[in-house]
């Protein structure tokens, strides 16, 4: 049996994709596509480095490779390396790296108690949320047009709208708001990068766990009747408040009218 053209290796800093030095590019591409397919759940959104060995790689080829990795499973190519040494020569390929569906990258702070997967950086000391207006301008919204089932996970830098349910065992992690146009029964983490103005709204709000910025709450242990009206969860004075959705407009208006918004934020984070 010949050596595979592509090998995945786990290292201290993450996943490394080792390309065979002699294999033809077409062979690498084929082998890579196959591996991405077989390990797709494992690789979803993973951050990888590419080990080139002695292989010569043109910027164009590098760019093509980066695109293949990103388009398939949202892998993020963090850099290239030769014999385990990071190299900068192909950084050009990374310039247009940012995939459309950017998962919440490590540069964002997150809840200290968040599960190990993906979001591991602790909250930086300056972890102050951007203002609502500021965020709206720069971040996009991801629409998911199906129900998220157990084991499925969505991570996105901006806001997420789900046209469907979020079932128990599924998770949504967003840098901004999360809106579920069905029943939220799984885990939702809004403002995962520290934005305390983020909110979670759902047609039926019955999450196993809710997280906003670095605050988290869980459903009560004993079964409680859940009102069958749309509800919204947001942070107020460091606590997650759940409210009827229809009062949201009022709350936003009053907060927009608050001239001391920055000060208020300061105070909320001070605790």
């Amino acid at each position, binding site marked *: 049996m010949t050596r595979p053209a592509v090998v995945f290796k786990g290292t201290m800093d993450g996943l490394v994709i080792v390309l065979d030095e002699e294999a033809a590019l077409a062979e690498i591409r084929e082998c890579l596509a196959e591996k991405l397919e077989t390990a797709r759940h494992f690789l979803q959104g993973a951050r990888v480095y590419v080990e080139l060995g002695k292989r010569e790689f043109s910027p164009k080829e590098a760019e093509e490779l980066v695109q293949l990795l990103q388009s398939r499973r949202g892998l993020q190519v963090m850099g290239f390396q030769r014999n385990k040494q990071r190299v900068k020569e192909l950084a050009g390929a990374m310039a247009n790296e940012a995939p459309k569906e950017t998962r919440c990258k490590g540069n964002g702070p997150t809840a200290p108690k968040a599960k190990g997967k993906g979001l591991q950086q602790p909250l930086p000391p300056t972890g102050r949320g951007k203002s609502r207006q500021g965020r709206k301008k720069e971040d996009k919204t991801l629409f998911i047009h199906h129900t998220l089932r157990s084991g499925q996970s969505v991570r996105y830098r901006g806001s997420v709208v789900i046209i469907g349910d979020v*079932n128990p065992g599924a998770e949504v992690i967003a840098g901004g708001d999360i809106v579920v146009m069905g029943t939220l029964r799984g885990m939702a983490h809004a403002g995962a990068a520290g934005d305390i103005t983020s909110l979670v709204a759902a047609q039926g709000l019955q999450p196993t766990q809710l997280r906003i910025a670095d605050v988290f709450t869980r459903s009560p242990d004993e079964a409680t009747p859940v009102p069958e009206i749309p509800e919204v969860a947001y942070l107020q004075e460091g606590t997650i408040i759940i409210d009827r959705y229809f009062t949201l407009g009022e709350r936003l208006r009053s907060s927009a009218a608050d001239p001391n918004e920055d000060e208020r934020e300061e105070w909320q984070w001070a605790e």
Partner: protein
Amino acid sequence: MGRVIVITSGKGGVGKTTTAANLGTALALLGNKVVLIDADIGLRNLDVVMGLENRIVYDLVDVTSGVCRLRQGLIKDKRFNDTLFLLAAAQTKDKTAVSPEQMEELCQRLKKKFDYILIDSPAGIERGFQNAISGADQALVVTTPEISAVRDADRIIGLLEAAGKENPELIINRLRSSLVQKGDMMDIDDMIDILAVQLLGVVPEDDHIVVSSNKGEPVVLDPDSKAGMAFRNIAARIMGEEIPLLSFNEEVGLFGRLRRFFGWAQ
């Protein structure tokens, strides 16, 4: 051209093998040519439930690896005249002994000769599951009215959809109507609400199942069994007939019937 149907669940012990054995037998009873494939390599059971354990000479791995011909691997069920066959799992190998591609090829070959090919999937979501679904045209997800089983069914449906097996159908097994009525068990609506898939049938808890599994005689062959009737109905629905769901309300006795007659039932 036959149809390949995989029976899967994620969680173990919900009745995949029982379902496969009974649906296979029921489809054969209804005049179809059926082959059952046990994809649970290393933990084979389907042969025992079918009462065919002592006839296994060649198994799935022997067929896919070319040790024997396909014809030799198919074990004929003595109760049926050349319409029901079993391809048993290997007991001494493990799941990696077969690849998804080999399963797909096998299904393609069987499709030419049989009306229905039922694959009994192992529990779990790893290689064995991937093998079992790879050749399937359709998936039946079996669950019981327990939160853990429904959770796993949800995961499985997600994986099936990701693998391009659209529109899996649901079989709810081991429903105990007395518990549901008391509100101590998930009811059908709760489960459909979460899983959001087509319900193919509901099988009540039935002591006959234990007896028949141990005897190696599928319960569909027992005219007195409610579970057997439920499986026969499901088989007919697979063939495209429209049959209403069985009602599983417990016998209510004379007083209850009188009450219902006068409209006092809750």
